[in-house]
């Protein structure tokens, strides 16, 4: 037996303060009306630090700082100068990437392999990419001199804390806006580390402001009259509330919400790579991915063989200490999320789907859920319709390409989809018909700052990344 010995990444590189304030106007400040709360390591339930749930007065202060910075400094800087700051931030992210990866893993529960090899390289890439745009906006296709919107209020989720920050902050700054960002309640630490990077980069005070907190802080931010633009990534339910509260206001809005993506495997697919794509589609980041391939649609003629292969592969997944460099599946981010995954999985069983997990031992402390596959799922089952946001795969079958399209599109969501076939013409045929913002062909969960990302239908609107992503932050 080739047993891998523990290979933990050292956490000595991170320095977590016992408490943090809010990052407003270039400084860490104490709250006015906010109150402290604790952030924990979801893998151990250990308390990591105390952060502030910013109150309305704190948010007001942050928005005022952002407004001042916008009017006095940032909107007046030539794009070339803004680009320099962004390049500097990108380089600092790279220099500090090991520290940030460890911190992300501790605060979020995701495996260090992913924070190190996926999150951090993409964070740096987003800043580099948008740094390049800052002085080229005249060539982006939005007129000779597209203007920024002003102050952007941005609310991000806990699944890719620093990466979602980068997706929001980099285009906003490149296009000349200033930012008030609220990281998720359970994962504030890398955003606070990013505040330090802004200081290191000598970014003018107030250009980036970070207010930690939960839903109330987020509401205060998006509803603040001083905000010109709201960008939100998170649940469809909260997205609806935001859309309602903004209706009739002058604020520009982009929403990146939930998903229930279909990963469609045809009988001529490269099977071993399709299995990897299925694993990467739903078990990457414990399935805490809005574009996760949570519905496997497999052609009936190969369903049995593919499932055998998938199950054999899942037996090799390594669940455990997220800081261990060989861990594939880390911790669920919070007790609340774990409860939701458990509830929906139980409903799946009650509705008659067959539940399977590989033998795997869950750690005693922390929030854990084994990789789970449901077979015999039909479109009517709740696990085939509702976003679980966990490591739970629902397997359905189809007979013809038309049926695959019909089933794949038969969801209120439309964020992403995957197609697996060796036939190029079928990939194009499917891509034209799938109502999803991203269609991956013979791969899944691949991201690049040059490629626009966003949803159809109840998965939201607006694009992030690429030339299209700039539009969300420009007055066009």
């Amino acid at each position, binding site marked *: 037996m*080739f047993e891998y*010995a523990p290979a933990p990444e050292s956490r000595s590189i991170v320095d977590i303060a016992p408490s943090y304030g809010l990052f407003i106007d270039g400084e860490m400040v104490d709250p006015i009306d906010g109150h402290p709360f604790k952030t924990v390591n979801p893998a151990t339930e250990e308390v990591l630090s105390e952060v502030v749930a910013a109150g309305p007065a704190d948010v007001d202060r942050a928005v005022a700082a952002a407004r001042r910075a916008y009017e006095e400094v940032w909107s007046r800087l030539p794009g070339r100068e803004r680009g320099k700051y962004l390049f500097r931030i990108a380089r600092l992210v790279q220099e500090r990437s090991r520290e940030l990866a460890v911190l992300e893993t501790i605060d979020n529960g995701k495996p260090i*392999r992913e924070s190190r090899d996926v999150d951090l390289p993409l964070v740096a890439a987003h800043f580099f990419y948008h740094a390049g745009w800052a002085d080229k906006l005249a060539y982006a296709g939005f007129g000779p001199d597209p203007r920024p919107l002003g102050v952007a209020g941005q609310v991000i989720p806990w699944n890719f804390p620093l990466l979602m920050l980068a997706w929001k902050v980099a285009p906003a700054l490149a296009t000349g806006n200033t930012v008030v960002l609220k990281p998720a309640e359970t994962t504030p630490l890398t955003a606070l580390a990013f505040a330090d990077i802004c200081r290191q980069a000598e970014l003018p005070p107030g250009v980036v402001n970070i207010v930690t907190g939960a839903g109330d802080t987020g509401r205060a931010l998006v509803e603040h009259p001083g905000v010109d633009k709201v960008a939100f990534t998170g649940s469809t339910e909260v997205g609806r509330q935001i859309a309602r509260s903004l209706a009739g206001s002058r604020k520009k809005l982009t929403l990146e919400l939930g998903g229930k993506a279909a990963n469609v495997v045809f009988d001529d697919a490269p099977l*071993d*790579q399709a299995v990897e794509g299925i694993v990467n589609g739903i078990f990457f980041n414990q399935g805490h991915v809005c574009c996760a391939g949570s519905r496997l649609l497999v052609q009936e003629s190969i369903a*049995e063989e593919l499932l055998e292969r998938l199950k054999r592969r899942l037996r090799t997944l390594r669940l455990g200490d997220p800081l261990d460099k*060989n861990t594939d599946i880390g911790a669920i981010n919070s007790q609340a999320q774990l409860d939701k995954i458990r509830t929906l999985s139980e409903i799946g069983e009650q509705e008659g789907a067959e539940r399977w997990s590989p033998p795997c031992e869950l750690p005693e402390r922390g929030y854990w859920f084994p990789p789970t596959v449901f077979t015999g799922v039909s479109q009517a089952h709740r696990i085939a319709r509702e976003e679980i946001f966990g490591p739970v795969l629902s397997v359905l079958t189809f007979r013809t390409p038309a049926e695959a399209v019909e089933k794949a599109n038969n969801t209120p969501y439309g964020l992403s989809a995957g197609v697996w076939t060796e036939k190029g013409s079928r990939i194009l045929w499917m891509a034209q018909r799938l109502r999803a913002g991203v269609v991956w062909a013979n791969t899944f969960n691949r991201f690049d700052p040059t490629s626009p990302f966003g949803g159809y239908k109840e998965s939201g609107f607006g694009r992030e990344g690429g030339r299209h992503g700039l539009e969300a932050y420009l007055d066009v």
Partner: protein
Amino acid sequence: MTTTTSAPSLADVTASDAALRRFLHGLPGVDQVGAEARAATLATRSIKTTAKRFALDLAIRMVDLTTLEGQDTPGKVRALCAKAQRPDPTDPSCPPVAAVCVYGDLVPVAVEALRGSGIRVAAVATAFPSGRAPLEVKLADVRAAVEAGAEEIDMVIDRGAFLAGRYLAVHDEIVAVKEACGDAHLKVILETGELATYDNVKRASWLAMLAGADFVKTSTGKVSPAATLPVALVMLEAARDFRDRTGRRVGVKVAGGIRAAKDAIRYLVIVNETCGDDWLTPDAFRFGASSLLNDLLMQREKTVTGRYAGPDHFTLD
């Protein structure tokens, strides 16, 4: 995995050129990007402390210590055989290698030098490395090596015939060589660097396994690229699937360009996570290498003493 009822009997697939072509081209394809990404991910596994010690010893036991040069002499082969038996003369706990691999004319020297050691003698044959000779010459090459005492034969496939689509010709040649081998184990070298695509690697692996290969082997070491992690992955997946279909375990040998212990460990990780325990033995996985052994020894000593010894502390043979 159980055999699906719709799968054709493997006995029929070699009945004609057309049937064999249908079968090989009917195998699920290999997506290049996906296969390379999977191999790259597995290469990030961090093998430390006890796992590293285990992997290094296992890798040493899997080495086919090889010399395949025009300048090979009996003296050189004897020195290699001595090294094969006691890779680290200062440490009796260091295991011997699996085999010594030489050209056919030097088999008697190796057999003499390794007598009673349990280390096998392997010979390259069939007009290695190009394979460009009439079948009768190739078979004579094999018979001579086996008569001289070789227990393992490393043959090369006819890549020209394979790339021209004459699969049955390649198959029948392997069958003939296998017959000429008698009791000797047959390793079939695909020369994956010349097959170029992963689809071809997969088809050639199946072809060789169907023809009775005991091992499929990546390369001669004379063509670049030689062994790579994704090629090994594709071949191991083929061996795994072949056993699912037939119940027969076919080994995999990676050869050419593997010089660092770190790389050897990466291959073992791929074996472990693709085929599992059943292939983690010298009976089912081999490294064709020469300079790799000294790096394995150097890393092994480091795991014992905590320090690296200089290269002159390891014998050059």
